[in-house]
């Protein structure tokens, strides 16, 4: 690793954006933001701004993609051309294709696929602004969109990344840390079932660092999970409070 770049974490343990090693970036979650989608959610996580929408269960188009004994989940992760510093072509990149696949595979375990054969649920994630950790924020929002659509779920899926910068294991990397750091480990988790549904890593971690980062990411997940539940309840509680006045 070259020493050319500046320190990502200083002697006092403060990172470039002022956070401590185990601090999450500020998060904002809103459920039910799009009127035409069956379910939707919006997330702001640090500078990430992401919209997720869920449609279904509904008949699949094309029909031959449906399965006779279960529901099919389709997922599209897409970044807007203006979401990153250098304009990104609207055409799906290989990274977007891979992320669409892993996001779908991380949401599937939460669904009762056998309940609605011959139907499909389509989840769309649009990254409006990206600053590191978009796949995690996308998953958190997508799970809320699916729940908002009234699709039964085993648990909400929540995601958070941990990583390593300058030999320190840290939580929730932002873009600069992701690019210049030594490792990035996104994790998606269903807290009530203790189930990790997405796990990727690139970088260099010893077994010990890997364990530390995994635990740190899961702790981050648990914190964000509470916010997810709040956001979901808020949409339905507002009316309750108004009515009981």
């Amino acid at each position, binding site marked *: 690793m070259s020493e050319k770049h500046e320190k990502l974490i200083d002697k006092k343990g403060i990172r470039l954006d002022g956070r401590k090693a185990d601090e999450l970036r500020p998060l904002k979650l809103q459920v039910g933001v799009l009127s035409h989608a069956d379910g939707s959610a919006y997330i702001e996580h640090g500078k990430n701004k992401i919209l997720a929408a869920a449609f279904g269960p509904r008949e699949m188009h094309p029909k031959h993609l449906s399965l006779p004994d279960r529901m099919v989940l389709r997922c599209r992760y897409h970044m807007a051309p203006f979401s990153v510093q250098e304009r990104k072509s609207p055409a799906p990149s*290989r*990274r977007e*294709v*891979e992320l*669409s*696949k*892993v996001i779908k*595979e991380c949401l*599937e*375990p939460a669904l009762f696929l056998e309940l609605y054969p011959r139907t499909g649920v389509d989840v769309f994630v649009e990254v409006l602004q990206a600053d590191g950790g978009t796949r995690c924020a996308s998953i958190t929002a997508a799970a809320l969109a699916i729940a908002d659509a009234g699709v039964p779920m085993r648990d909400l899926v929540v995601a958070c990344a941990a990583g390593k910068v300058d030999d320190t294991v840290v939580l929730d990397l932002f873009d600069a840390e992701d690019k210049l750091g030594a490792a990035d*480990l996104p994790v998606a988790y*269903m807290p009530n*079932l*203790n*189930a*990790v*549904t*997405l*796990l*990727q*890593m*690139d*970088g*260099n*971690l*010893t*077994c010990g660092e*890997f*364990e530390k980062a*995994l*635990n740190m990411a*899961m702790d981050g997940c648990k914190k964000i999970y509470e916010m997810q539940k709040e956001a979901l309840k808020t949409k339905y509680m507002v009316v309750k409070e108004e009515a009981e006045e």
Partner: protein
Amino acid sequence: MSSLITRVRLKQIEQFIEKGKRLDERGLRDTREIKIEQGLIEKAEGSARVLLGKTEVLVGVKVETGEPFPDTPNEGVMTVNAELVPIASPNFEAGPPNEDSIELARVVDRGIRESKAIDNEKLCIEPGKKVFVVFVDVYVLNHDGNLIDASAIAALAALLNTKMPNYEIKDGELKIKQGYTPLPVKGHPITVTMGKINNSLIVDPGLEEEQVMDSRISMAINEEGHICAVQKGGSGYFTPQQILEASKIAQEKAAEIRKKLNW
């Protein structure tokens, strides 16, 4: 994916695994036999053919010159592509890369890139202007399970077999010289993929096992035993304990395989 395997077979595999065995008499932690042949495609700058059991992958490496990326002016460029050609499996269709071949390529890429197996700075010809561009093309010839590990070994074997032409800058122009230099490979990452069937982890899943397993986890390990890449795939899940167990298994197996291959 369970359309290809009968329910009876599925149950059979599950029952065997419960007892710690597999249908081909392997133990849960055993990999299939690995055979490597290098340099079989003379027109490529490097090539290797790997047999992992009956899974067969051919990797060809082409070396060209080009411009470096703006943020790494002194480093060469590597790009990995994978093709799941129809001859390899009745399930593969001709056409542009689908999500499976893209995932395969990117996972193989990560193993090599993050372990810094290639000494990128030695691929620089003229800083900021000309560097070597290494194209790694993974060609799956027969799919009998665990394309990731087979492709990763084949890719590394092909890179170890790669010779780059010699260039020099003469009078401001890029001129080709006599002779070749081996591609500077300084790391030997090994990727270990484990499948999960019920709650057992099996190393190097075969094709039928892949249809029974609910998810897989692949880990690329470098010579120091450090983890350089991880990819969970499939629609199931792992508990954190299973993930840590997988990391220990991966470390063990990677060291074992590296020794067997003499890398």
